[in-house]
């Protein structure tokens, strides 16, 4: 290969060449700072040892200052209020308000930094910087955006149905907050630990459809209505695979209570994603359709129908729709973590680290996956997406439900250690899933083509040959 001529050093290339890694930057600091850092690390280690002593000793369990589970605080508060002889409604009202405040602060805090996180991570995928001018690391960008959106002139179409035009930004926010109810953040930390938690989740996710439709219809705009119809069709279709995937989870764990599902996974040290890989994939993919994210964001595909169902909304009204998307993304992350990734447990780590931090880390991981998908995959076409749900996900999910029903009945009758059947199920399900997906995709004509050895486009325009000639190959 001949020598490539050196490219001229542009400022950006020079910047990249001069960029030092974290370790190099650390080695460059002065002796005093290194000593200080060592001292800090030693202090942290000592305090961790103290914490470890207290945790192993068990004298922390259930105390009100046991912050591994904030449910302890409310529990003590409630029993204190009962001892003091308050009206029986007061403790319940207080703890309910505290829990609601917690959920709202999670969602609200995410709305504050979520768009910054998404844009920064997406920028890394596209090899650029992302917002980095407003405040440190561009952290104030979402606030600036919100201020901009709020002071924008709100344009309301003259022919819009006023009553139904104002309602949807609010309606659509309700499920995004209500959905957090049954999520267990730690052993005692779930706001609404319903017996029918799984059904509740599905019911809440089906409420968003109406807000989307009303938004599209009341705007009196073709693009809005088209986007709304697309979104409604998509959400209604993808509710079925979600329900079937969760049905498999419920069959295996034998409970519809979210905290019991998490406890099951912690008890057997087996995340359900290992046992039910296809259900996990179905849930993840269908959720991206349900919450309008790439690769399934055809409801608001900006290159096709402007902004879909909220085309006619401006100012903070549009901002609310975007905020709902952010909020829904972490809600789905929490659901995914709870159902398939062991929730707040992490193979025993939850006795050392607060469960809510583990759950938050898992939510972050799922969210990162969402951003990754957004940075990687192109958008599906409407018919492809609907066909994928009806022809591919639903039949395979039905087969999987039958399979899991058999496995669950075997598991219920099994007496020796649970490791053997679970390992067998994991291997069997993985193998069957791969084989099933391959065969069914082949039968539908989705079979992947044999990888092209040469880029078709470059060959067609003679680009590759020209390039090879230039290189003397």
């Amino acid at each position: 290969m001949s020598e490539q001529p050196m490219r001229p050093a542009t400022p950006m290339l020079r910047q990249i060449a001069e960029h030092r890694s974290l370790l190099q930057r650390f080695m460059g600091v002065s002796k005093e700072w290194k000593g200080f850092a060592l001292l800090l690390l030693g202090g942290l280690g000592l305090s961790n040892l103290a914490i470890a002593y207290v945790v192993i000793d068990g004298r922390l369990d259930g105390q009100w200052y046991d912050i591994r589970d904030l449910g302890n605080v409310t529990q003590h508060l409630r029993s204190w209020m009962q001892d003091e002889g308050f009206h029986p409604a007061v403790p319940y009202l207080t703890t309910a308000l505290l829990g609601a405040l917690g959920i709202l602060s999670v969602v609200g805090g995410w709305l504050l930094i979520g768009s910054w996180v998404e844009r920064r991570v997406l920028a890394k995928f596209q090899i650029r910087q992302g917002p980095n001018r407003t405040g440190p690391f561009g952290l104030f960008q979402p606030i600036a955006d919100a201020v901009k959106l709020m002071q924008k002139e709100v344009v309301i179409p003259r022919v819009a149905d006023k009553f139904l035009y104002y309602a949807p930004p609010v309606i659509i926010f309700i499920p995004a907050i209500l959905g957090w109810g049954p999520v267990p953040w730690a052993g005692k930390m779930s706001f609404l630990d319903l017996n029918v938690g799984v059904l509740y989740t599905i019911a809440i996710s089906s409420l968003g459809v109406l807000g989307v439709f009303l938004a599209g219809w009341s705007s009196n705009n073709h693009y809005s209505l088209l986007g709304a119809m697309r979104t409604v069709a998509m959400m209604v279709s993808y509710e079925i695979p979600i329900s079937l995937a969760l049905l498999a989870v419920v069959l295996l764990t034998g409970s519809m209570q979210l905290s019991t599902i998490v406890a099951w996974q912690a008890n057997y040290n087996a995340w359900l994603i290992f046992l039910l890989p296809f259900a996990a994939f179905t849930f993840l993919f269908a959720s991206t359709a349900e919450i309008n994210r790439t690769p399934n964001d055809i409801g608001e595909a900006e290159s096709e129908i402007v902004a879909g169902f909220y085309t006619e909304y401006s100012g903070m009204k549009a901002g609310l729709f975007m905020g709902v998307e952010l909020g829904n993304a972490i809600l789905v992350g929490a659901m995914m973590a709870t159902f398939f990734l062991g929730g707040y447990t992490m193979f025993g780590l939850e006795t050392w680290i607060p469960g809510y931090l583990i759950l938050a880390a898992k939510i972050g991981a799922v969210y990162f996956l969402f951003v990754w998908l957004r940075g990687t995959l192109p958008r599906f076409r409407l018919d492809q997406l609907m066909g994928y749900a009806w022809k591919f996900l639903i039949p395979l999910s039905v087969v999987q439900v039958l399979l899991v029903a058999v496995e669950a009945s075997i598991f219920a009758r099994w007496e020796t250690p649970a490791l053997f059947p679970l390992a067998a199920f994991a291997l069997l399900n993985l193998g069957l899933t791969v084989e099933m997906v391959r065969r069914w995709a082949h039968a539908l004509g989705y079979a992947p083509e044999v990888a092209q050895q040469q880029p078709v486009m470059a060959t067609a325009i003679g680009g590759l040959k020209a390039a090879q000639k230039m290189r003397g190959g």
Partner: protein
Amino acid sequence: MILAFFALSGLTVASALLVFVARNLLHALAFLVLSFLGMAGLFLTLSADFIGVAQVLIYAGSISVLMVFAVMLTPLASRNNGSTLYVIPAMLAAGGLASLIGFVAIDTEWDERKGEALGVSDFTTTVAGIGDLLLGRYLLAFEVASVLLLFALLGAIVLVQERRRAGEEA
């Protein structure tokens, strides 16, 4: 509890009334969904969690979407929902139904408990019981309903299938 009951029933009744009063069909639909949600809340206060959630899932989530599509696909659906003579028999039927339900509710001996007598243990989960009954005593009804739904699905597919004309291939 009393507060929740009155708030929820007020919401349900008021939005049901607005369904009746609203001139626009889609406005009526929005109020109908609100009324469904109020009903679900009432079921929840009665600690019938399964029925409450099913109310949200089926009525507020699915039936409303079905109605939206029905309204969209019906010509003249967005017209003014003016007063017709059908109001009179409808009022009569609704009044009869309301008085029937009211009579039954007053006539029934309710096992009423208050305060201390109302223990937490009285509220057991309803899901397991419903499941046992559905797959045990009422298995036939359950299966008949499933077959009915299957036929409805097949019928819908047959209805919307594109018919190929004779002599036209694929």
